[in-house]
């Protein structure tokens, strides 16, 4: 059962290594790439703490082998900010107290961001549906919904401003 070479881009940087085919992608991210912002909370693909984006699509990285991500482009929580400057989704969670212990937060943000890319102005039900694969034990979700709404508004600002100028 030999190791196989794997190489993938995470947050724009290339990470390579020889891994056992059975290595879960989340372990590659955390232990080979050293990006520990992506967490593990269950073993049944239920909690979403390990959510990352694979080619822009949010997935649970505990239910994919690292070898399956060979050649793909991944994004994790560490890829959200520009330096110390927060992405609107991070800002949304901070301003609206959308996190408490912080453990589910990275996965929650990766899911939210993918939602906003597809649906820039989601309803509350659309938000709740989109994050229904990410469990949070601290917040009761109310402030998470508010955080995503904040980010949606903020990300639409340039577009809305442009529309305003056109009037």
């Amino acid at each position, binding site marked *: 059962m030999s190791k196989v070479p794997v190489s993938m881009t995470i947050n724009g940087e290339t990470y390579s290594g020889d891994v056992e085919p059975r290595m879960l992608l989340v372990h590659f991210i955390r*232990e080979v790439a050293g990006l520990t912002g992506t*967490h593990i909370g269950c073993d049944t693909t*239920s909690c979403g703490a390990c959510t990352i984006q694979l080619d822009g699509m949010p997935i649970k990285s505990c239910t994919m082998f690292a070898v399956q991500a060979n050649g793909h482009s991944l994004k994790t929580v560490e890829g959200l900010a520009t330096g110390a400057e927060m992405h609107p989704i991070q800002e949304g969670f901070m301003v609206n107290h959308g996190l408490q*212990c912080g453990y589910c*937060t990275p996965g929650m*943000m990766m899911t939210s961001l993918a939602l906003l890319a597809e649906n820039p102005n989601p309803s509350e039900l659309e938000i709740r549906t989109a*994050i229904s694969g990410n469990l*949070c034990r601290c917040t009761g979700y109310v402030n998470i919904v508010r955080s995503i709404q904040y980010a949606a508004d903020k990300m639409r600002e340039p577009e809305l401003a442009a529309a305003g100028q056109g009037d």
Partner: protein
Amino acid sequence: MAIESPKIMGYGTSPKRKEDPRFLHGKGTYVDDIKLPGMLHMDIVRSPYAHAKITNINIEPALETPGVLAVITGKDLDAAGLAWMPTLMSDTQMVLPVEKVVYQSQEVAAVIATDRYTAADGVMAVEVDYEPLPAVVDPFKALEKDSPLVRPDKGKDTNHIWHWEAGDKDATDKVFADADIVVEEDLYIPRIHVASIETCGCVASYDAVNGKLTIWMTTQAPHAIRTVFSLVSGIPEHKIRVISPDIGGGFGGKVPVYPGYVIAVVASLKTGRPVKWIEDRSENLQADSFARDYHITAQLAADKDGRIRGMKVKTLADHGAADAAANPSKFPAGLFSICTGSYDLEAAHVEVDAVYTTKPPGGVAYRCSFRVTEAVHTIERMVDRLAVELDRDPADLRYQNFIPKENFPYKSPTGWEYDSGDYKQALDVALERIGYEDLRKEQAEKRARGELMGIGISTFTEIVGAGPSNTFDILGIKMFDSAEIRIHPTGSAIVRIGVQTQGQGHETTFAQIVAEELGLPVDNITVEHGDTDTAPYGLGTYASRSTPTAGAATAVAARKIREKAKHIAAHLLECNPDDLEWKDYKFSVKGVPDRSKTMQEIAFAAYTNHPQGMEAGLEAVNYYDPPNLTFPFGAYVCVVDIDPGTGVVKIRRFVAIDDCGTVINPMIVEGQIHGGLTMGMAPSLFEEIPYDENGNNMAGTFMDYLLPTSLETPNWETGNTVTPSPHHPFGAKGVGESPTVGAPPAIVNAVVDALSHLGVKHVDIPMTPWKIHKLITDAQATTA
């Protein structure tokens, strides 16, 4: 040059949380994020049986697995005197068993390997032979004479552990004999699990050169853990450092010491290398301490006019294979005797019997103060039960029986002294907010159409902030808590506290206490905790005790600093300290507000120009011993709709009015309430850990242990009233757990209310669709 000075942001303001940036950037440090050179990984072999003799453990095949360095069994620990450990309730628990296992998924052996994959392979390779014994699942049967013994090591011929009672039995019997009406109900508060999203784990690192053991650990109480480790292992306490880094939720489940922690320490001592142990979710749900599991029979005695006079409660507490509850030593049933709630009763008597069964040990809190959820559930259900019996509106009956606000401090019939309360006001606000009268009209119309809708109320009293040291201790360690504040010369500060955040935002709120008390901007104050080498000794965070105890300690320490600062200010202003007043966050000469000194100016002087004869510097420590507990309360109203075709209960609205005294940070308090309500709803509708007749856990993964998602959770509506605690330095009471305690009876009362016209009087949680559907069909069968 107009630079806006940073804001103080004291009590009642909502600065953004200081801890958030690291979490939002993925830079938090949880235990599993720690990676040390040469670190090994541990995985655990667990029992498939609930009760079985171990006849043989063959570790050889595991040792032959490349990368496996060691396998530890009970015999290894026994040789070192570590096969057993004390629980927080002075019971004993196996670290690794030598003779038999007493619950499914019990730790049987541990494999130490170079990485977690190899460790898992090693676990598969260990061969254990068992001789199954009959499981003891039903706690009532466990007390029967012919029941198999779970703990023969105890030297008793029964599974009974202890009997405890509170209140006045004779006085209660008299009231019951004299009352017009008695209502009785059996309530079961099932076994559940806190299931924080981060499971438990540790990294144990023994440095043989310096003889120092460092343990990074998912614990809510690092100091107490250090002391216990020292006492059990014989390693001097100064050679043990426990670090509780970022914690991914605690809720009570991270208070106990689990066998895995101890084995990891032994493994590090044995191998001389750091050893990491991180449990899986299924291990977490199947072996870690549970909560609740109380079988309650309650009675209320009342007069025909609705005056509630007395209460009797008998309870059987299923503790599993060890009493590993996290209660204060003198309170084996925790604060369960708070069960007379918000009502002015003449007498009450409460009994609890504890019993061993072949299930995992417990019971810890599930985001609640010691056994208070069970108590509140009992009284709030029984009041509704009485309302139905007397055909009274449940709000109305509550108003009639509330302890009036002028009766505080109030001595309860079970001996507690409630500090303050205004229950009527909270219920007024809640009923107004939800539109109670209109809802009752809507309900009547819907009933006429055959639709099922219910309105439920809960007006609970919590008891938190343990506690006064004359009665409260854990393993003999008094339940004070501590704070240490040091002001730097330029007016910034560091605060170290004995409690430990798991998401509550201590780094922000404790900075706000210092900001308010000393007039320093919150941004200039750093809060540290969780490292026993640097933080002052404290008992940790659980039972909503941080603000009532360490919060008070922080305020008292700050006030000590302020007193010294006053003398420095007098020196700087060349006046008598008695001529100074503390106003607008500075000291000024009475009547001459222009002549003043800020804390920043005073801090600089404390290091550069302090009065002759005074010690330099500006710092203080306080170990706060609270004079009493605090008694937060609230009024909750829940509206449910029930689908008669499926039995599904939907929470349409939920209004929560909380009173936790003075609020430090309204944003954080609201967040705590949202989370607490969700953890109140979860066991009401979804969560339970049932066992089959062989003692098999039937909800051992997140596929069957049902944490609510965003779609099952309603949009909580919150509000508050403020009734400060008279004995707390700034009037705060604690809030994190009130909603978990108060929400379940509101939801159950709403469901029973929706079905009451069918003759339904009670339903146990979780109110699963099939259970509700059965109530409806059984009622229809009776009427037909």
